[in-house]
């Protein structure tokens, strides 16, 4: 039943977006203050992203309204998102910023989730990529030597089985790596610290964290990058990450090792969670019952913002060289990404149980 309602919700979401489009393109008056709910604490990844986007948003929106960031942390973003779902005003005053940890619990049917994406329209989605790297003392110099890792136990500092690392765990398993997850890391940064201490043998970081903190390690021969997760292109295919063009994608490494393309339920799950967690790493939502002219104003302003050279320059530094997805594309891709079929749900729930003894 829950899955059905999700499916229904997702289609309504797409439809709502279509409805929003045909109205005339004209700038309507927005509230003078816009409250942007961020369901995470101050100083975290999503918060910093929002704080970097906020002034640009102010600049692009007609009337230059003040964008106030309201942090509402708790439950790994579930608390704040639930509250937004219950309380957000639909007059253009309230928008929401989410992250992978908002989408995953929804997809996995976490019982604390009271939100539904059918009531919201995505205005913009910022993608990210990620890189997997290992300790140099394993005798591996690139993904070509991945066979050398057969039978080697690789401790991996991780936050939780259902966190951002979920698709990464799937990738490791498909590659036949013997991963020993060590849970309870407070952040991906804490996981990297465990790697730097030499406790973790393998680690993974999203693009911006990799660029700021791991590239130094690689230059000093303290880390060997293996592969990137790649990014989704317009056709929904996974291609090399422009930020790490010289690194093979997971798919390439898999092909090299096994001589065939990855397939099956496991790969379907991998792609699903990769899309939701990375292609839609950060999303701005607006309540769908906001008057359509206001939504349109927002959509146009976001488009305008994405073309602003100042924004592009800042975005390179803060997010990486990725193209943000807007408008109807965002709605379409997002609805694809978060729809989990009943078979896939059963598979992933069994997998979490057998692999991590984690009950969904």
């Amino acid at each position, binding site marked *: 039943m829950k899955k059905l309602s999700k499916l229904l919700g997702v289609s309504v979401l797409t439809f709502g977006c279509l409805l929003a489009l045909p109205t005339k393109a004209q700038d309507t008056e927005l509230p003078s203050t816009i409250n942007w709910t961020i369901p995470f*604490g*101050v*100083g*975290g990844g999503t*918060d*910093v992203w929002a*704080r*970097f986007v906020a*002034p640009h948003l102010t600049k692009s929106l007609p009337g230059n309204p003040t964008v*106030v*960031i*309201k*942090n*509402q*942390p*708790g*439950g790994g973003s579930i*608390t704040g998102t639930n509250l937004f779902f219950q309380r957000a005003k639909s007059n253009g005053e309230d928008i929401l910023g989410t992250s992978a940890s908002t989408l995953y619990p929804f997809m996995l049917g976490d019982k*604390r989730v009271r939100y539904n994406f059918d009531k919201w329209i995505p205005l913009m989605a910022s993608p990210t990529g990620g890189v997997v790297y290992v300790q140099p003392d394993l005798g591996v110099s690139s993904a070509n030597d991945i066979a050398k890792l057969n039978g080697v136990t690789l*401790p991996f*500092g991780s936050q*939780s*089985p*259902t966190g951002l690392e979920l698709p990464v765990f799937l990738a490791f398993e498909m590659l036949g790596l013997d991963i*020993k997850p*060590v*849970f*309870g890391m*407070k*952040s991906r*940064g*804490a996981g*990297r*610290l*465990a790697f*730097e*201490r030499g*406790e*973790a043998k393998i680690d993974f970081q999203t693009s911006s*964290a990799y660029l*700021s*903190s791991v590239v*130094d390690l690689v230059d000093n021969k303290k880390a060997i990058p293996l592969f990137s997760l790649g990014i989704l292109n317009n056709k929904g295919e996974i291609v090399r990450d422009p930020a790490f063009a010289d690194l093979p994608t997971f798919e390439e490494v898999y092909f090299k090792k096994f001589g065939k393309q990855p397939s099956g339920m496991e790969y379907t799950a991998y792609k699903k969670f990769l899309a939701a967690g990375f292609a839609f790493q950060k999303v701005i939502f607006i309540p769908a019952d906001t008057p359509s002219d206001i939504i349109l104003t927002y959509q146009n302003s976001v488009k305008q913002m994405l073309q602003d050279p100042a924004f592009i320059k800042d975005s390179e*530094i*803060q997010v990486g060289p990725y193209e943000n997805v807007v408008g109807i594309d965002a709605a379409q891709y997002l609805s694809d990404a978060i729809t989990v079929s009943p078979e896939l749900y059963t598979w992933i729930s069994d997998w979490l149980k057998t692999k*991590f*003894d*984690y*009950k969904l």
Partner: protein
Amino acid sequence: MIEFLSALDQIMSVAHLTYLIAGVLVGLVVGIIPGLGGIAGMSLLLPFLYGMEPSVGLGMLMGLVAVIPTGDTFTSVLMGIPGSSSSQATVMDGFPLAKKGQAARALSAAFLSSMIGGVVGAIVLSVFILVARPVVLAFSSAELFMLTLLGLSVVAALSGANVYKGLAACGFGLLVGAIGGAPATGEFRFTLDIDYLYDGIPLVVVGLGIFALPEIISLLVKNSAIASSPNKLGHGLKQGFKDVFANLPLVGKSSIFGSLIGAIPGLGGSVVDWMTYSFAINSSKDSSQFGKGDIRGVIAPESANNACASGSMIPTILFGVPGSGAAAVFLGGMLLLGIQPGVSMITTHLDLTYTIIWSLALANILGAIFCICFTRPISLLTYIKFSVLTPIILTLILFAAYQATRSLGDFILLGVVATLGIMMKGANWPRPAFLIGFVLSSGAENYFFQSIQFYGYSWFLRPGVIAIAALIIVGFVLPPILKKRKQKSVLKEEPSPQEVQKDNIVKTVSWTDWGIIAIMSVYATYALANIWDTSMLTKAFPMIAIAIVLFSVVMILSKYIKEKHTRIPSDLSMHLVYIAGFFVIAYGYYLFGFISTTFVFSLLFLKLLAKVSYLKSTIIAIGLVIFLVTIGRVMNVDFPEGFFDPYLLNAIKTFI
């Protein structure tokens, strides 16, 4: 060296100084108001931050972050409200000093030690940061686990006469701290299916509930001024300074210890005040006055918490892993300024790093000076009849608690913890032991499993682990035992009347004791049933906590049976009436709206219960409303809206 001096030149520029002072002022304000902290200050400064010259922006942020542990001393000393988690230990002796009419002394000593602590921290930072990388990396999960044990061993010194009560309280704290997701598996424990509990219990609310509310209620029951004896000459500002200079070795040791603990990511600053507090107890010849108003109990934690804030910049700057909540805010600010933390901060951006350090030192000095200027007038507050202050303090506490997760759950939890706090206070159970167990619970569990998973069972042979184990035994476990033995031998020679009396106090039992024992046993039994079917990694740690609680309870009970205990009446009925009243009022704040209820409640309370004139009551009530509205506006703080607040705020808006 050149960077070191050029950074000094940089911070002495007018622009830098102006922004630094702005940061310091904001930091003091958010530090003084309990419940706010770096986060609220940050939201005030951020609009200015974006696009700022990095070194100037860093100076402003540093000013903010550095003085928060200075400003939060005001409420800790004057009202018994721990302004933030880093000043909980200050309450232990600061508030009793205020009750003795020595608030000015306690405050000035606190501010001077904060200043010295902060500057020592900055000096340690400036040298240590160049070599810190390998040192910080040497602290693996195994050493971090040992450090949490070091924190827990403090309980030995804080338990006073009854070790088992301390142990039970600590175990109970560990168990309460285990509420929420198990770090090793993500499975949820003891949540009663209440959403609020899934995240675990917020530390701020526990601190307020266990210390602040019980103090306030017992003052209300007595209905006197906070300061029960008049200010004696020589107990003002100057005396505080003299106290600090008389205890310089303690200040120095606490500062250095504080900055080193701050430098290690993962432990956080919330125990460093307790560690140095118990260190002060252990290292003093006569420790009988601790908890009753010993100035050393203020000096030690206050030197340590500012030093700790400095030390926590090391992991933030070098690794991008914040060592404390305030450091997390600072990290966010760095990223917004376009500065990436990491090795480059000591290679290519060394000048920026030294700018941070100089700003840190300067901010600590300025912050302390500002605070000292206000000490005398503010400490006069303690002479006002307490019932007049009650609505103000209660509003502040509710405000602070609500900032934790912004839900009704914060109020309910506050009342529940306060009930436990009142009982523990009444029956002389060591409340700090509970708090320390609570604070260290998740760290202890997390690092224990991580070290086993990373190293197997050989982790306890690591040299770092052995070194810390030795430190625990020599520094924290042996001193209380030795001291007790010494006291006993003295006692044998000539039993002084004081000692005999002390012995009598220990051997009493009241219904409150039985109540606490019942609460602990029931909760432990529930916890046991709750985790029985879960996986090993989920239940192992709570099992240990349950074992500690039940073992201590059995030991306490057997003592009751074996030794003769004088039965004393528990005089808490009045307190419990007030707690019931608290629940009603807190619900009113939520239901009718925070600001409207503040107005109505303070007006009625002042007029009817405190017997203050209409004019004064109205002025105080309006003042509170103005304060709340301003804070709400300027710092984007949320209150429960309830029925009436939207109307009230609209009315205010049109009025202005």
